[in-house]
């Protein structure tokens, strides 16, 4: 049984990470690995779809903090979408909406990237 899974797909040059399950101190290294893989292949336009993310702790939030600076230095961004109210509350409690764009739907996050390049 795996408590956390990540799916990766590409659409219009933007990489979408689909998170599923529980993101805590045990599973956070899996997300770090996924970000590292994208960044080492110079993929800096990233959307994280949280539709099936059931839980996040500060260990998971820390992963987003670890990569955002590097991503933005390379003219990219990490945008988030499809959060459940429960997961959004944790991001909100720590003020993360100040630093990250969080969209209701993945397509809105994708469109933001595409509009920027026009």
């Amino acid at each position, binding site marked *: 049984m795996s*408590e956390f899974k990540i799916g990766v797909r590409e659409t219009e040059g933007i990489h979408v990470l689909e998170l599923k399950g*529980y993101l*805590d*101190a*045990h599973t956070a290294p899996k997300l770090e690995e996924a970000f590292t893989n994208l960044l080492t292949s110079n993929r800096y336009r990233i959307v994280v779809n949280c539709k099936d993310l059931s*839980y996040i*702790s*500060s*260990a998971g*939030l*820390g992963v987003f*903090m*670890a990569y*955002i*600076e590097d991503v933005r230095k390379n003219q990219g961004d990490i945008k988030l979408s499809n959060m459940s109210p*429960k997961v959004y*509350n*944790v991001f909100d*409690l*720590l*003020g*993360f909406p*100040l*630093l990250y764009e969080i969209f209701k739907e993945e397509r809105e996050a994708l469109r933001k990237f595409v509009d920027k390049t026009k």
Partner: protein
Amino acid sequence: MKTETLHIESKTERLIAVRDFVSAAAREFGFGDEEISKIALAVDEACTNVIKHAYKFEPDKTLTVTVQRGNGTFEVSIRDTGKRFDPSGFQPPDMKEYLSHFRRGGLGVYLMKSLMDKVEYNFEPGKPNEVRLIKYLTP
């Protein structure tokens, strides 16, 4: 007053068992989904701190999680015999400043204090370190 105890190895893979344990006790006590989520997250953060900082990921160590409930008070005590974490110097971070500098880590204690009604630390010579997380059930 009802008391239940869970002993777990100092491994992050056991965090899910701790969350399930406290969530079930909180539900039985009468908390709703939102409060249960807050309690489970606060306890996860406390246990993560112990595994990381007190035990430095040594997997053969043990954490003791005890839930005591009664008279409208839900208290979770987490005890360890590792290195002391002294929270007296803890200042809640200015999140705007924190985020603007892309800092990382140190958010666990902030979350615990935000999510619970009370967070207390007990350090007594010859006794295990203890953090107590308390939430009141309001009718």
